[in-house]
């Protein structure tokens, strides 16, 4: 394979992190792992991890930290099922490399409720409005919904529908989702 297709070229990851000399790169894609050491905060706890440089934040949360609340629905940032909060902003964790989360603050659905196990008002509103069926998109919907409110994008039903359209629900619970967010938004503002 020509060097122009080596994994090192154009990569945001500094070449010194590769295990081998880039000039001796094997054919793209690389089939050998490069370990990356990370320190990040997940749901308020510091985590030190050694991960594959190719690992997504989603797979890292699920496979290394046992936090399987965030779901993989497409692995391409197209469905929103893996939505988490990174430094307080909603991101799709499948399109975020674990390495990008180094030194940052991650909140997943498992960390949304109170320490006493109490549900977040958004979680309760999803139950109240039956805003879920199979439940697979639900953690992503809820993380996205909480951010939607905090961003100030839940002022009207139309706003909610627009700013929640990155989170697909194939069961079709959209009406319940929009209603739950309207309901929880007022409680979140009061709270």
């Amino acid at each position, binding site marked *: 394979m020509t060097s122009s297709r080596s994994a090192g070229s154009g990569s945001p990851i500094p070449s010194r992190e590769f295990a081998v000399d880039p000039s001796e790169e094997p*054919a793209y*894609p690389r*089939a*050998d*792992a490069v370990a990356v050491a990370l320190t990040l905060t997940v749901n308020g706890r510091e985590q030190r991890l050694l991960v*594959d440089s*190719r*690992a997504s934040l989603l*797979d890292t949360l699920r*496979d290394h930290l*046992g*936090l*399987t*609340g*965030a*779901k*993989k*629905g*497409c*692995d*391409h940032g*197209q*469905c929103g*099922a893996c939505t988490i909060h990174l430094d307080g902003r909603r991101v799709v964790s499948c399109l975020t490399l674990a390495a990008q989360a180094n030194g940052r603050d991650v909140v997943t*659905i*498992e960390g949304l*409720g109170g320490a006493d196990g109490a*549900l977040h008002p958004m*979680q*309760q509103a*999803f*139950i*109240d409005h*039956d805003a*879920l*069926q*199979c*439940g*697979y*998109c*639900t*953690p992503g919907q*809820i993380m996205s919904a909480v951010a939607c409110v905090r961003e100030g994008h839940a002022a009207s039903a139309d706003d*909610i*529908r*627009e700013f*929640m*359209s*990155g*989170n*697909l*629900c*194939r*069961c*079709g*619970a*959209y*009406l*319940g*989702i929009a209603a739950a967010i309207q309901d929880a938004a007022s409680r979140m503002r009061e709270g």
Partner: protein
Amino acid sequence: MTIEIIESTQTYPLIGAGIDRVDGPLKVTGAARYPADVDLPNLAHAVLVRSTISAGKIRRIDTASAEAAAGVLAVLTHVNAPRIALGPKSPLGQTPPPPLQDDRIVQYGQYVAIVVAETIEQAAAAARLVQVDYEATDPLLELSDARAIRLENPYGTDLQRGNVSAAFDAADVKFEAGYTTPANTNNPLGLFATVAEWKGDTLTVHDATQWPSNVRPTLATMFGIPESGVRVLAPYVGGGFGAGLRVWPHVVLTVLAARTIGRPVKTVLTRPQMFTGIGHRPNTAQHVKLGAARDGRLLAIDHAGAESVALEDDNFEATTWGTASAYACANVSARDQQVRLNITAPGSMRAPGTAQGNFALESAIDELAYAIGMDPLALRRANYAEIEPQSGLPWSSNALHACYDEGAERFGWSRRAPQPRAMRDGRWLVGYGMASATYPWYQAPCRARVTLSRDGTAYVRSAATDIGTGTYTVMKQLAAETLGLTLDRVTFDLGDSSMPDSPQAGGSGLTIALGSAVYAACRNLVEKCLDVVRRDTREPLHDSSLDDVTAADDGIHRNDDAQLRSSYVEIMARHGLEDVTADGESTPATQEDTGFAPAGAFAAKFVEVRVDADLGLIRVARVVSAIDGGRILNEKLATSQVIGGTVGGIGMALFEETASDPGIGRIANATLADYLVAVNADIPAMEVIFVGAPDRMSPIGVKGVGEIGLVGIAAAIANAVYHATGVRVRDLPITLDRLL
């Protein structure tokens, strides 16, 4: 035989009450464990490699680089994979052929290798190193391809009555047209996942299935082990919409890989693989001929459908099946044909067959109404089938008239201007459209078991699944009601093949089958309690039979004297019992048993669309669905089901089309960015009205509402688009370019 329909006995009736989804708390906290969430010690990860051609054979497959890659544990191809037996037939047809058995390629996306590695990253990277050299041949891809094998009456559902051609020829008004529907892909959000673990000759499989009781015997046969050695677990499934009804090749390959490396293996399909490996709604080409009298009476209906099917697989897609019983018409022919093609295997997708067939029939009925100059709703009323027209028997239930009446009233159908393009709101052309709908009755045998413990709590279970339908919730309600227990004393569990056998979550048939089995089990349990006290004259309920008593208030009392009662806790304590277990089973009643034609759910769908007069943008503005689903066990959840079906129907009407490259068969839009499904902003205000009475085919009176929400939406939207614009679109999806 008359089936006695139960009535709600509790002071606070549990059946029908809109209680919250009982699995809600687990799902909103991320604690519900789906198959992809399963982790096991020493778990290895698998990634599948798919063919890039649709027909031909593998000349050479080079796995050396993949095998040499870091972390790789095994690479299986047709060259080194062990032989796997053909799976058994299920009621849905033959199990899909076992993978990796020879060098032939019959569809795009067929698995050609499975790569197993220590981590998902290693497996994914190594899978890309597998080199395949194909010898491609010209694939059969189009329904119209003259070379393709055509199966006549493939489902045995073709129906004829009267003399259609003579009646059509003699009719005052004649209408005929062709309609097409494209391939749609189920795309449940949950990527299908399988985790397989062998311990000696016993196998445990966590799988995204809608039917554990089918996966178990299928894997047992394919791997040559006793059924008792297989356990299939699916407590939570991330949607399915029919995709989880069969044992697809990725399940078999995962089991094979686990056996090969002697470690548990997990496979999670990628989204593109979700387009090629777990079925889809096949495309159809249909032709409808209608003959009518000037007053709107239908004199002839002729409905022919052709559906694609994979070259070497089965699929039940009875597209014209519902037509013969849709209207009171003496002369009807409804027939299907399947065309074998080199396409990715179709399977069931929400309202299989009926979704497409209803679109053609209900579009044609609308077109006939304009040809006669009659209100489309009035035309449907004029042809209402008072009795089931094919058998001549009374329906087991039919509130279609009430669907028409209440739906039209709520929608404001009377405000509709008769002519197309006559209603406008600024730049928006406004259209009203409606469609009639039914989904066929279906029930299969089912078993359930209930155990009552000395603390007065009941544990009820069956090997069913809850794919978001609300099974956990409504079965808990039903068991609590039947046992006379408060909800907090009842647990309902499912999703484990070691529980009593259940049919699939599919065909709108699970609630009637499982509900009847749970009801029977709970009644048998009450009877067992009566047996315990039967000969003990100190017991208030001694010598009582099931007919003498009512279960209520955490116990049982006599109907003739409510003071004569015992709580379950008292009975068990007095007789030193730790627990009492009872089984229940249900078998479908037949029309010979009951004298009724079994009726599925009925519905009338009313839709308002708005079309931008200049740009052709189409917006669904509101939908009213009036549903006769028999007894509704939980109105809150049933409403969600119908709304969800409607969202799927909007997708089918306006967005969804699995596109493939002409002549090649590659799926060209196999991502969720390219295959459009309805998003939140696409979904308008909706109302769901339930009408009708308990159905007479089962003691619990339900009909199932899993599919009926979808059926009719595509036609109602097409009819509303015509009313708004004067443009008739007979080929789905209805995109703006068709309107310009």
